[in-house]
């Protein structure tokens, strides 16, 4: 079954939904595909206090619910499913979702980023059994217990602070001596006496996969090499994200870290393909910058289609 479209948007975080809102209002009839992690990273947060317009903050999932409803109100079509392959070598582009295929003249990529893991074998084995990347989902199961949060950025501070609601003690493990997190998030965490600071430390081992649960972590101080075993029952990993770009490998220009390279706003190396949000941003990575770049991609896409209709130079189809 083949479906022909003017515009497909992949991704349903702030970038994708803002692009959908703007292109729906421009009558481009966008089809937005939302995957398994629909709503993006904000679905895993609690109170968002830095999205302008909400002076008392808004819960991440509520904010995403509002954005989704707003895009739908103006006619954006939202479909659930995971894109399994794309072909950007010639127009119309092909988007494959299992047995279904969609053809589209333009594509906006807003696939975002997913949590990065430390890379220990035990980490995967114990995921969901004491190892977690989602404090709001799993913190509840660690009432009165000791846990660790790994990372030194805003998400690590937020998770550590949030997890003190449940845990008796939170060990904050960070490989450097200073934190990357914003001042306000650091101050909140530093003021919390349930947080034990394990700076200049890395986790060498998470025990014990054989038991199917977390029983301790083995820390190594990167300055003096000292090793410490800390008995605890949970490890929350908050060491950043990696862009979700495996679908586009060898088809779009990317940097060494796999972020899609954009030029002149949201344009990628393939005319007619635009990228917005965390998938192309390794600097700012905020809900508001993602939303802003979603708006840029929508306007760039709209102008591209207008130029195409008028036969202007930007619209020359790629020869293959």
């Amino acid at each position, binding site marked *: 079954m083949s479906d022909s479209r003017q515009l497909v948007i992949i991704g349903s975080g702030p970038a994708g939904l803002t692009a959908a809102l703007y292109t729906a209002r421009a009558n481009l009839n966008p089809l937005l595909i939302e995957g*398994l*992690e*629909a*709503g993006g990273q904000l*679905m*895993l947060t609690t109170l968002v206090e830095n999205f302008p317009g909400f002076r008392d903050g808004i819960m*991440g*999932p509520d904010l995403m619910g509002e954005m989704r409803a707003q895009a739908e109100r103006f006619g954006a079509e939202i479909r659930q499913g*995971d894109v399994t392959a794309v072909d950007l070598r010639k127009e119309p582009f092909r988007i494959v979702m*299992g047995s279904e295929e969609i053809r589209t003249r333009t594509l906006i990529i807003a696939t975002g980023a997913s949590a990065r893991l430390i890379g220990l074998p035990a980490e995967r084995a114990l*995921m*969901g*059994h*004491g190892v*977690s990347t*989602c404090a*709001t*989902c*799993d913190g*509840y*199961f*660690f009432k009165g217990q000791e846990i660790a949060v790994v990372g030194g950025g805003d998400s690590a501070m937020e998770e550590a602070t949030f997890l003190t609601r449940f845990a008796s003690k939170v060990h904050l493990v960070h490989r450097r001596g200073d934190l990357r997190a914003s001042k306000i998030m650091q101050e909140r965490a530093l003021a919390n006496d349930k947080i034990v600071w394990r700076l200049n430390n890395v986790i060498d081992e998470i025990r014990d996969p054989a038991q*199917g*649960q977390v029983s301790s972590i083995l820390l190594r101080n990167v300055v003096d090499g000292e090793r410490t075993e800390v008995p605890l029952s*949970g490890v929350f990993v908050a060491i950043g994200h990696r862009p979700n770009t495996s679908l586009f490998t060898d088809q779009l220009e990317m940097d060494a870290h796999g972020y899609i390279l954009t030029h002149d706003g949201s344009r990628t190396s393939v005319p007619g393909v635009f990228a917005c949000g965390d998938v192309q941003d390794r600097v700012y990575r905020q809900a508001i910058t993602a939303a802003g770049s979603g708006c840029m991609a929508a306007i760039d896409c709209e102008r591209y289609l207008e130029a195409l209709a008028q036969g202007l130079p930007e619209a020359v189809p790629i020869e293959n």
Partner: protein
Amino acid sequence: MAAEQVQTFSDANFSQQVLQASSPVLVDFWAEWCAPCKRLGPTVDALAAEYQGKVVVGKMNVDENPSTPEKYAIRGIPTLLLFKGGEVVESVVGLQQKDDLKKILDRHV
């Protein structure tokens, strides 16, 4: 529609409705504050309809029922456990595609 086929399990009825059931039982552990759980909800509803008569499908709210999740050492939600003859035969943590869950259920029906 599908939601009508989905059972509600609790600490109180778990033994009778899950452990002593004659057919396999899929239990979805969830909570109101868990966004991925809400995302998985409709998939579980659909499975309940598709496997009607073959697999009993139900949900357990972990806030209201703390003992059962503790007994099965649940450390994250959503978690799906498949019970057969009172024993856990499958355990899946996190969001899943419906087709992947069907493959798991098909091994036991």
